[in-house]
């Protein structure tokens, strides 16, 4: 299981293996940013990185550490779900999830990893069932800046991002919301995103890991254990961007 991954690592730092799933179909909202930020923040800690960008006509490897799925329009989303499901439960992404690899999915990708999502006319389309969530189509599109306070158990600072979706997502038992919405729409019930074990989903672009380095470090930490802090010189711009975006949302609500 996933807990063993860290212990079985050789003494020197082994590479963090990042797998970007189907960038040809699921990369509508700058999703490369999430990949680049994970790679950058790993390297800033002296961790080597291996990156696999896997297009939809290729096989998804099962031995990655962190899998990224991005946003997409209806047709690419349905095609991506179909192709991932067709691989079967014992290989690729499903196998990786089964052994506890980290999965971080955004927007259309977030919906795909659930059990069901809404198709072109809102009809239910089967998802991959890697996390017990169901998404359908809401009445109107949620478009705009979003801020949300992360589940305190995760120890990550307030999220800032941009959302653009018409999805409404409900969680099954055992799945927790990633965050509570401060401003914006999120899942549609006052919560934003979801996580269960090491499977995490969110509606945030921005991209999410760019504006929320704490979230990126959480994912990296799940793979590589405790991370040393980043040299402030390498983080200054990102922290200014965060402050800029959070300030643009007006004064934070009393907590």
């Amino acid at each position, binding site marked *: 299981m996933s807990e063993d991954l860290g212990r079985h690592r050789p003494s020197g730092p082994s590479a963090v293996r990042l797998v970007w799933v189907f960038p040809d179909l699921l990369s*509508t909202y700058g999703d490369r940013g999430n990949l680049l930020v994970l790679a950058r923040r790993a390297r800033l800690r002296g961790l080597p990185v291996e990156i696999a960008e896997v297009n*939809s006509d290729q096989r998804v490897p099962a031995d990655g550490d962190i899998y990224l799925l991005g946003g997409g329009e209806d*047709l*690419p989303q349905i095609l991506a779900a179909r192709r991932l499901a067709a691989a079967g439960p014992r290989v690729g992404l499903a196998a990786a999830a089964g052994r506890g690899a980290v999965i971080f999915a955004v927007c259309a990708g977030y919906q795909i990893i659930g059990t069901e999502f809404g198709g072109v006319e809102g009809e239910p389309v089967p998802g991959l069932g890697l996390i017990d969530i169901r998404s359908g189509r809401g009445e109107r*599109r949620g478009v*705009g800046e979003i801020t949300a306070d992360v589940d305190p158990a995760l120890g990550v600072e307030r999220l800032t991002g941009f959302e653009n979706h018409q999805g409404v997502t409900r969680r099954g038992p055992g799945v927790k919301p990633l965050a509570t919405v401060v401003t914006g729409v999120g899942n549609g019930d006052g919560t934003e995103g979801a996580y269960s074990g090491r499977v995490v989903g969110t509606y945030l*672009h921005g991209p999410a890991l760019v504006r929320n380095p704490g979230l990126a470090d959480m994912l990296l930490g799940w793979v590589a254990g405790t991370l040393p802090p980043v040299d402030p010189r390498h983080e200054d711009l990102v922290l200014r961007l965060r402050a800029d975006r959070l300030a643009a949302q007006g004064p934070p609500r009393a907590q």
Partner: protein
Amino acid sequence: MSTSSPPSRRYSLPLRARLATTVGGAAGRASRLAGRGDGSVIGGVIGLRLKPDLLSLLARGRQVILVTGTNGKTTTTRLVTAALGAMGQQIASNAFGANMEAGLVAALAKAPDATLAVLEVDEKFMPAMLEKTGARVVVLLNLSRDQMDRAAEIWMLARRWRAALAAAPGCRVIANADDPLVAWAAGQARQVTWVAAGQRWHDDSWCCPNCGSHLRRDGEDWYCGECPNRRPPVRWVLAGDEVIDPTGRSRPLDLALPGRANRSNAVIAFAVAEVFGISATQAMGAVQQVRSVAGRYTQVERNGCALRLLLAKNPAGWLEALDILVPPPVPVLLAVNAQTPDGKDTSWLWDVDYRRLRGRPVFVTGERKLDLAVRLEADEVAFRMVGSVDEAIDVARSKSMEVIANYTAFQQIRATLGRVG
């Protein structure tokens, strides 16, 4: 106006429409005098309020050409106008990019006697504008991600185009066969001139718009493995720096405007001209001479530095803009805003590959310069943040500089430089 000239089209308009254009025109002049914009929209807005069907009335009896797509609308509108100049007629045009209904109204009202109109139209409003103008020709350039917070989904847009063109059998469509979304959108139109105008940005067309399967690409060709959807046979071709006309004759384009995207726009302009009986030979000279369009591609001298202004609003546009930069060590200034016309989501910055800016001086400005700075840092591009164009010029101490800006950032820079071009 002398009494011997033919009666103005304007007086064939109903009284209320005449009043609406007169009041609108006065408001446009007032707006220009007040220094608020170029005055082309406010007049149209007022006119439409007085007479909601003003556009249909103004378009009546004219041959209207609508130009739409994600990138290249304004430039192509200008090139088509230049190409049709060979007909020797007055042409109405919204040459400065006011491409919603009020802008179209203003352009037509300003040229009551023009029997031809070349009108750029926002891609989201094309179906409505087609219906209102009864356009003779619709030009479809390309479709890619842009202002996604307003446009929602590109495929939905293509679907609306497809339905609108299917319902307009009298309209000839000039369409880029190399863009699968555009080809599908034009697929049910009765009359289509297909142009191999190229597609630099592929990342919004990996999915068959017809059936949702994976689209395959083989060089320039594309086809769906699951349904009959494939690249249609083309009549006009952009081949490198040359245009190949329907007779198979190839000739160099040699445009004053830079870049592949503009060669593509020029070939489209020739295909439009053909509909009106004008050959590429007749149109070539005028098309070649267009050198700046609504401030774009303009060279401006500022404090001893020659600035060249390039507009890029979305990843496909940035790709084309980065392609035409003059080589290092000439510095580059990048400016990004995220106001409503720009799209408020800056995620698209991560769709652009900035690595080719490594190794030359790069300056970053605009209301969202921090987003851009973080982006460049991730691509390991060295840069410096500045508060203004002038600061960049001061620091760079270079004889020339390339400027790439998105929409409102571009307008702000133009305003700083005194509305050049």
